[in-house]
């Protein structure tokens, strides 16, 4: 084992191909006889489909078919996107696919799409989250949802659902789920507190804004196997969803996860059933490429939330009770929502004497909710960390010292009811406290401010397997079925190299498909490096056993007395008695060879998660007259367990912090009162672009995860969690005004400042 390889910054192994344009993405592959599909999206937020007039479209040269729901060979009657890729009789959001035009060329498909006429009978639409909950509110969906939907929530985090609520609150039928986490008497704890603060916090729907819109290509092999090549985070979960959709056995479906052009939680089997349904119906290959406009309207962004939060503390800053009522807009996703995760994470990485946390999953006539980097966490942290910032002011305490007084350590029981595993909350806050931006925050020019906030992501578990194979040239191929997202394959390479004893440059990593690869769950939930990486480590160790066995015979030295370093097996203490891995592999991989191939299979099934804590500093300047907030500098400290490759770790920290800047200042999917999307393009929906993102300092904190490969843990989601509240707290420090609704757009900031100040101060 060569542990010295761990912790060295290296370029991503996929970078040269991506930078030079050599990577083939899902829309690039050539398929003989390919047809092109264009979806017809509902223009109505809630309606019955009266009829779809296909005649004119079918007369457009090149148009092969105009498919509606009845044309697809669905095997299930549910109302989720897998079971209902095209709306059957009721549309429940503007943007829902209603028909699919399939043509010989993309242009013909577009001409055909323009000619399709859909007649609707409008139904009352319910757009407002709070309105939807009121008893008597119109129902967002009239057709009853079947049970037996997919199992997508478990992908994201190992979170139990809490108790089902026994409360007798009067709620409309749009409230699909209630969660209540309770321990102790929160009301009494708040009553007995020296300070109690409360507030209502609002966050909008937010789009994942991956560079590559969703795309899937489906065809039937002559043998009858359905093959789907797609931009997805999870090949096996997509295969399961397709099996459910069409009633096919798993072995008749092959899903190929192509290189991802970004996903961030939004690519878990969404449009694949539509492409596959068309291919099955027409028995020809069909490719569906969403335009950016389609992608804005017809995919699955993350929920709007409204959080009422109350927190209490004693004079010395010890937290007492916490109460939350968290409304989660699921849109038209009847299957699952983040009310379970967000009502857990709203307590933060802190100890509380008592808690009463409620989550409500509410359906509305908006797009179906989907995951986006740490779903449910940025919204929870925005509420909690804003109130904690106010609490520190009210108690005249340093915000970091106050948090340190309450930060959880291993063994503390969280609001999940389970003890926290190893967690670096204290270490991260202590590291942040040392930064000069924090120490010097009192001596800033007028209009500037520094804020801080902290948050965590619990991490996830899922059994996984991997294979390591050494070829006759002495190089190693690592095979997993994990989608290469955020650089995980580059991490696997160094894990395998270190565990086996090979130079990392000699390791390549293959992302296999469901027909050829060992099992791995979807890339999400900050679990890939932790779980699949652990399996890779095991596979490399198993391959090492094989190479030692062969070397032992060649060198006539017991395996225990051998070591493998940089591709050479040598006697411990006598390095001149050695043989290369390449030579051993050559001896094994040939006719009449005497040694087993140098290959290993490894698996993992961790039961304890590895939470990651990240804390932020933000330095802002606010233009009081225009409401513009300028980000001057950002600092993030994160516990990453062990930085396998600091370059990639810092990239994740910067990327997460940057997406948090989007939450804070820019991003908002806005519908008008009738349910029409107003921000359906990048002309209206803004994301943080390079010239608005400040310098970001990254402080890597390493508290090794006991069950992770070389102590590493999943780190992708934690960095986004508390970035926005740090910025909002910085705005409060700069202006004295606290904002409780995201994003802080210039008109929004201007209005808030105008409200809190006399007119002549503007």
């Amino acid at each position, binding site marked *: 084992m060569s542990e010295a390889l761990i912790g060295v910054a290296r370029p991503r192994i996929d970078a040269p191909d991506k930078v030079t344009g050599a990577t083939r993405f899902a829309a690039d592959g050539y398929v003989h006889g390919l047809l092109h599909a264009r979806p017809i999206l509902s223009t109505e937020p809630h309606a019955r489909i009266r009829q779809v007039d296909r005649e004119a479209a079918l007369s457009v040269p090149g148009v092969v078919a105009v498919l509606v729901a009845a044309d697809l060979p669905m095997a299930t009657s549910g109302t989720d996107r897998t079971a209902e890729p095209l709306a059957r009789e009721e549309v429940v959001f503007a943007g829902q696919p209603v028909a699919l035009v399939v043509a010989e060329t*993309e*242009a013909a498909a*577009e*001409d055909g799409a*323009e000619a399709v006429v859909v007649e609707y009978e409008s139904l009352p639409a319910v757009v407002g989250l709070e309105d939807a909950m009121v008893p008597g509110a119109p129902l967002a969906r009239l057709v009853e949802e079947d049970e037996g939907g997919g199992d997508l929530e478990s992908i994201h985090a190992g979170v139990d659902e809490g108790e089902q609520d026994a409360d007798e609150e009067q709620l409309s039928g749009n409230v699909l789920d209630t969660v209540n986490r309770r321990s102790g008497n929160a009301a009494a704890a708040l009553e007995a507190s020296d300070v109690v603060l409360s507030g209502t916090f609002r966050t909008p729907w937010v789009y994942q804004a991956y560079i590559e819109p969703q795309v899937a290509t489906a065809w039937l092999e002559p043998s009858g196997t359905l093959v789907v090549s797609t931009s997805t985070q999870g090949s096996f979960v997509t295969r399961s969803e397709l099996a459910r959709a069409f009633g096919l056995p798993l072995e008749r479906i092959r899903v190929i996860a192509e290189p991802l052009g970004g996903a961030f939680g939004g690519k878990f089997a969404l449009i694949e059933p539509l492409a596959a349904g068309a291919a099955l119906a027409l028995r020809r290959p069909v490719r569906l490429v969403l*335009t950016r*406009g389609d992608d804005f309207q017809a995919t699955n962004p993350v929920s709007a939330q409204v959080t009422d939060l109350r927190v209490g503390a004693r004079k010395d800053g010890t937290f007492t009770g916490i109460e939350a009522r968290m409304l989660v807009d699921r849109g038209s996703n009847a299957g699952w929502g983040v009310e379970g995760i967000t009502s857990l994470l709203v307590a933060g990485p802190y100890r509380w004497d008592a808690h009463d946390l409620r989550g409500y999953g509410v359906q509305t006539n908006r797009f179906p909710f989907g995951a986006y980097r740490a779903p449910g966490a940025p919204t929870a942290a925005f509420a909690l960390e804003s109130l904690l910032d106010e609490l520190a002011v009210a108690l005249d305490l340093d915000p970091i010292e106050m948090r340190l007084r309450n930060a959880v350590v291993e063994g503390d029981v969280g609001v999940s009811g389970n003890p926290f595993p190893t967690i670096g909350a204290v270490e991260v806050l202590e590291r942040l406290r040392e930064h000069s931006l924090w120490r010097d925050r009192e001596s800033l020019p007028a209009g500037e401010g520094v804020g801080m906030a902290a948050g965590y992501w619990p991490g996830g578990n899922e059994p996984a397997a991997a294979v390591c194979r050494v070829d006759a040239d002495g190089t190693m191929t690592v095979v997993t079925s994990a989608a290469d997202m955020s650089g995980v394959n580059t991490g696997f390479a160094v894990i395998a190299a270190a565990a086996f004893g090979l130079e990392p440059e000699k390791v390549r990593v293959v992302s296999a498909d469901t027909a050829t690869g060992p099992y791995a769950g979807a890339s999400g939930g900050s679990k890939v490096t932790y779980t699949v990486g652990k399996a890779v480590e095991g596979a490399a160790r198993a391959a090492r056993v094989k190479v030692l066995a062969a070397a032992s015979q060649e060198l006539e030295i017991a395996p225990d007395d051998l070591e493998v370093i940089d591709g050479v097996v040598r006697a411990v203490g006598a390095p001149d008695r050695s043989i290369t891995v390449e030579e051993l592999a050559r001896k094994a991989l040939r006719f009449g060879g005497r040694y087993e191939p140098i290959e290993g299979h490894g698996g993992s099934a961790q039961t304890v998660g590895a939470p990651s804590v990240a804390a932020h500093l933000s330095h802002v300047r606010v233009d009081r*007259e*225009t*409401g*513009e907030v300028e980000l001057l500098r950002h600092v993030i400290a994160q516990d990453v367990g062990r930085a396998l490759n600091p370059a990639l770790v810092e990239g994740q920290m910067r990327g997460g912090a940057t997406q948090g800047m989007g939450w804070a*200042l*820019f991003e908002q999917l*806005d519908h*008008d009162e009738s349910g029409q999307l*107003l*921000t359906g393009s*990048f*002309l*209206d*929906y*803004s*994301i943080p672009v390079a010239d*608005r993102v400040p310098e970001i300092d990254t402080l890597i904190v390493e508290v090794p995860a006991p069950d992770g490969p070389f102590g590493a843990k999943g780190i992708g989601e934690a960095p986004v969690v508390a970035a926005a509240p740090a910025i909002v707290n910085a705005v409060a420090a700069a202006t004295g005004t606290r904002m409780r609704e995201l994003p802080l*757009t*210039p*008109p929004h900031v*201007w*209005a808030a400042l105008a409200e809190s100040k006399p007119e002549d101060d*503007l």
Partner: protein
Amino acid sequence: MIPAPVRYARATDIDDALALLAEPDAKALAGGQSLLPVMKLRIARPSLVVDISRLDLQGVDVRGGELHIGPLTTWDDLLRAEELRRPALSAMAECAEGIGDLQVRNRGTVGGSLAHADPASDMPAVLLALGAAVSLHSPNGDRVVRLADFFIGPFMTALLAQELITDVVVPLPKPGSGSAYVSVEHPASGFALAGAAASVGPDGERVAVTGIAGRPFLVSDHDDPVGGTDVFGDRFAPADYRRRLAIVLVERALERAAAHTAEDW
């Protein structure tokens, strides 16, 4: 994102372009930064696209005390023009460098932008503040229209169907003049939520505002720049915000223009 079927013709000279534009649903194409996106969305579906991009209407030069900007001059060409490097015209550079991104500035043209007349476009405010006029050519002959009379409403101008801009003329301000452009942009589109251009000097002050109404306009009372204007508002930026912004930006543009007067380029 594929335009509806459309015919294409490349004009050989201005009169050829005008002849082609006689077709009722024909549209002139210069840099394509406004027309092509709406064609791809099939919001615009001209029968014929008349490509005027190769006509000899590019370039910036000074003659007879006037700055002449060929309407096919791209934003990038404008930014590189030596003729603009004087404090009196600094508003033009300040404005042009904030337009779109590099790709847009390489393709988009001054004349195309004026003819498109997006009410949130930046440069019209600058040209208004500088007292610019446009020369127009049609089968009926030539005419000169002051920019203040050119913009009629959102995406509407004084241009006739068979008429092209042939020159953009900016009278050179006297020495000791300065100009400036300031705006607050929509964070997604980059278009102005409000923008103000000011020109100050021995000839007096001239101020124009864009982004808040159906067209960019010259301000008559600097202390009350919005006056009775019907201010546009939407869910992102309500009218009361844009109104206040215009007042703030007019003040800032005037200050900045005054600061430029002291510069010696």
